[in-house]
């Protein structure tokens, strides 16, 4: 990329990312921007129709509260999320998403997403909060509405295949972003009055179970490379729940979803001896305070019970698909024709579950001659992920909505514009926003809308373009392009361009990061276990890695993207290690165990663990923030609400 063209784009609201949250933001921003004479610019590193975590499709919508039918209340959802996260959640943020999410789902249906209906025209539930969909084109439909909104209203423009490296700052206010085209010889300077970060979570920070060709088969997509975390950290935003990673237990190797099996088909998982860890290890739940007694059992505790079986040498763990399907069809056993028909229907549902969202699992079944109605399949705990929209919680610390605060929460949780970070003009949604888990695809869309409306309000109130210094821009552009220069200067030193004493290619850099995280920070190899000494060792090694990131080398713009993706991952890794080190207890044992502080410590650690890296000095600050309720709680020590795991 010699002498790239530097393109400067000026806008009012800048939306970074193209996934569910960004698409929600686009629809919302277009409306309010038009009303207020403002412009909106969206930048996606891929093509919006199929970008983000829903790129392949989904077989279920995991958050639908059902407010209009009175099925559940906003408080019910907040209780569910708080319990699943072992007491650590921002109730105001979760409630805000819960009160709006049904609206997004109803819009999806109008736009053309097929949602399963029963004979009475009611949505078919997979579980209490989950709806079954024919979701192959879920993202296509949602992106179409977003594009129609932005382009049809005349207020917006969309840049695809432009990778965002980091923030532009004007003192303590976010002034936009800098990025480059992965197809053309162009660097972009986006100047904006407000910026919304919706660039997803992080995958491949930890070494994946499959490290050959199957490395791409991460559970969450490999293009989620920690860009949201990097962007917010570099802007100087306070971050929260950076220790709350997510370990999905999924069909082994291809990571096919288990939700339909556990919830819809009511399948059991059993170990090598035929034992069911959810029953046999139930007494273990008593050790985890009030959270061990809630229904449904929190995801990390379910993981943990299965992990204990594996540690005891009782693996493999099998999803008993054959047993579950036969049991459902059994009600037709006196009518062979109806029985065959039911089995056929269930078989089709089971295959669609994979084909809609994890096609690799369908390939693996076909390649292993597995017919789920005849044979069970192995499940396993995957490597750690950063996905604040799902059952993890990592993200930026955000201001909550004013009308969902109490006298107690107001001073801690609300400092102005809803979903604005601690950095002026920098908003977050989806995986970029922390302590507001279980929003999934639909809730991320709703949160994108919430953040976009709020950001437009911010622009109306702060209608001036933040200043940027040309000198500073030149410096940032040079930094962004440096890996290309490093490659050109040194590539002739050796016979193999991937092996060089003066530089490191992004792939090797990623392997180095993954090895550190896997071995010292509680990855698969370490059986998700770590301690103070190991985390300190991880920090030592990460410091060397950070120094060497200056020597990343890229042969072309594609590799340049890979270089920056891995720098982004490295920052997510450091925030994670520092926060696990800070929190001196074990709170989410099926996500990670601190072997030196193996127990829950409600007295000391029933708090948020937050961090911030000072952009000027590079120094990290660790702090705690109190956990407050916005809804009245029962007086007993147990925050548990007895909820059935599944309602149909």
């Amino acid at each position, binding site marked *: 990329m010699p002498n790239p063209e530097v393109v400067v784009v000026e806008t009012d609201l800048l939306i970074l990312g193209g996934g569910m949250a960004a698409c929600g933001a686009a*629809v919302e921003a*277009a*409306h309010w921007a038009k009303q*207020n004479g403002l412009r909106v610019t969206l930048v996606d590193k891929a093509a919006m129709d199929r970008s983000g975590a829903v*790129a392949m499709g989904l077989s279920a919508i995991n958050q639908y509260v059902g*407010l*209009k039918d009175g099925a559940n*209340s*906003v*408080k019910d959802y907040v209780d569910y999320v708080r319990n699943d996260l072992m007491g650590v959640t921002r109730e105001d943020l979760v*409630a805000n998403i819960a*009160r*709006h999410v*049904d*609206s997004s789902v*109803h*819009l999806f*249906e109008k*736009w*053309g*997403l*097929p949602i399963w209906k029963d004979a009475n025209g009611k949505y078919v539930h997979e579980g209490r909060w989950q709806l079954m969909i*024919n979701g*192959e*084109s879920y993202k*296509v*439909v949602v992106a*179409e*509405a977003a594009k*129609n909104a932005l382009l049809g*209203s005349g207020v917006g423009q969309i840049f695809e295949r432009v990778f965002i490296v980091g923030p532009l700052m004007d003192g303590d206010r976010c002034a936009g972003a800098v990025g480059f085209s992965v197809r053309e010889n162009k660097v972009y300077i986006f100047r904006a009055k407000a910026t919304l970060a919706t660039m997803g979570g992080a995958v491949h920070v930890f070494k994946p179970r*499959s*490290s*050959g*060709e*199957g490395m*791409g088969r*991460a559970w969450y997509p*490999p293009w989620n490379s920690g860009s949201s975390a990097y962007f917010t950290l570099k802007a100087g935003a306070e971050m929260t729940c950076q220790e709350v990673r997510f370990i999905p237990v999924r069909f082994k*190797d*291809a990571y096919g979803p288990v939700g339909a099996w556990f919830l819809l088909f009511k399948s059991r998982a059993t170990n090598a001896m035929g034992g069911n860890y959810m029953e046999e290890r139930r007494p273990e739940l008593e050790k985890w305070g009030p959270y061990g007694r809630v229904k449904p059992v929190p995801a990390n505790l379910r993981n943990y019970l299965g992990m204990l079986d594996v540690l005891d040498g009782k693996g493999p763990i099998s999803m008993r698909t054959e047993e579950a399907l036969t049991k459902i069809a059994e009600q037709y056993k006196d009518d062979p024709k109806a029985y065959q028909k039911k089995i056929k229907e269930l078989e*089709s549902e089971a*295959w*669609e579950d994979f*084909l809609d969202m994890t*096609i690799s699992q369908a*390939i693996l079944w*076909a*390649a*292993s*001659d597995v*017919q789920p109605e005849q044979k069970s399949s192995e499940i396993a705990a995957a490597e750690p992920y950063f996905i604040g929209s799902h059952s993890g919680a990592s993200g930026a610390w955000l201001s909550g*909505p004013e*009308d*969902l605060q109490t006298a107690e929460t107001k001073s801690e949780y609300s400092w102005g514009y809803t979903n604005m970070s601690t950095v002026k003009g920098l908003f977050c949604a989806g995986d970029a926003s922390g302590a507001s888990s279980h929003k999934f695809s639909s809730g991320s869309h709703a949160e994108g*809308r919430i953040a976009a*409306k709020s950001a437009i*309000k911010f622009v109306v109130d702060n209608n001036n373009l933040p200043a940027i210094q040309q000198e500073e821009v030149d410096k940032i552009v040079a930094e962004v392009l440096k890996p290309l220069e490093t490659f050109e200067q040194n590539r002739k030193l050796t016979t193999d361009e991937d092996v060089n004493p003066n530089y490191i290619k992004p792939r090797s850099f990623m392997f180095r990061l993954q090895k550190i995280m896997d071995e010292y920070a509680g990855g698969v190899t370490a059986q998700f276990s770590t301690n103070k000494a190991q985390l300190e060792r991880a920090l030592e090694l990460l410091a060397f890695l950070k120094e060497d990131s200056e020597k990343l080398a890229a042969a072309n713009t594609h590799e340049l993207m890979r270089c920056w993706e891995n720098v982004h991952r490295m920052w997510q890794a450091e925030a994670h290690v520092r926060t696990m080190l800070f929190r001196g207890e074990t709170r989410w044992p099926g996500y990670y165990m601190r072997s030196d502080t193996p127990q829950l410590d409600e007295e000391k650690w029933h708090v948020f663990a937050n961090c911030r890296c000072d952009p000027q000095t590079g120094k990290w600050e660790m702090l705690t923030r109190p956990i407050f309720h*916005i*809804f009245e709680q029962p007086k007993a020590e147990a925050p548990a609400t007895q909820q059935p795991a599944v309602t149909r």
Partner: protein
Amino acid sequence: MLLDKDTQKAYNRDPSMCWECYNCVKICPTQAIQVRGYADFVPLGASVTPLRSTDAIMWTVKFRNGTLKRFKFPIRTTPEGSAVPDGGFKSDGDLSSSELFTEPASLGLPEVFSLSTRGGAHA
């Protein structure tokens, strides 16, 4: 996927990070793209092939042992390109309210939930 302008053929420039999302397979106008499962854990010999139209997708699943299965699922209920942002729901909220675009109509409720209007304990 990237188009090689010399050969006029598209190729996957980085298979090491392929998610097997099949989006290139589904969109290829000549159905020229096939996927072979990840070499490090998938036995050889199976194939999963989509044929995506404007409203449905048909899958042909070929097992290693030769068994064939076909599945057809709907993918959308509206014509391609026709998604109207407001979904037909009215919007009359203002920028300072808690009502998002299309709300409260799109919620199917008379108003958006709030602590002050509904009271915390009875939410």
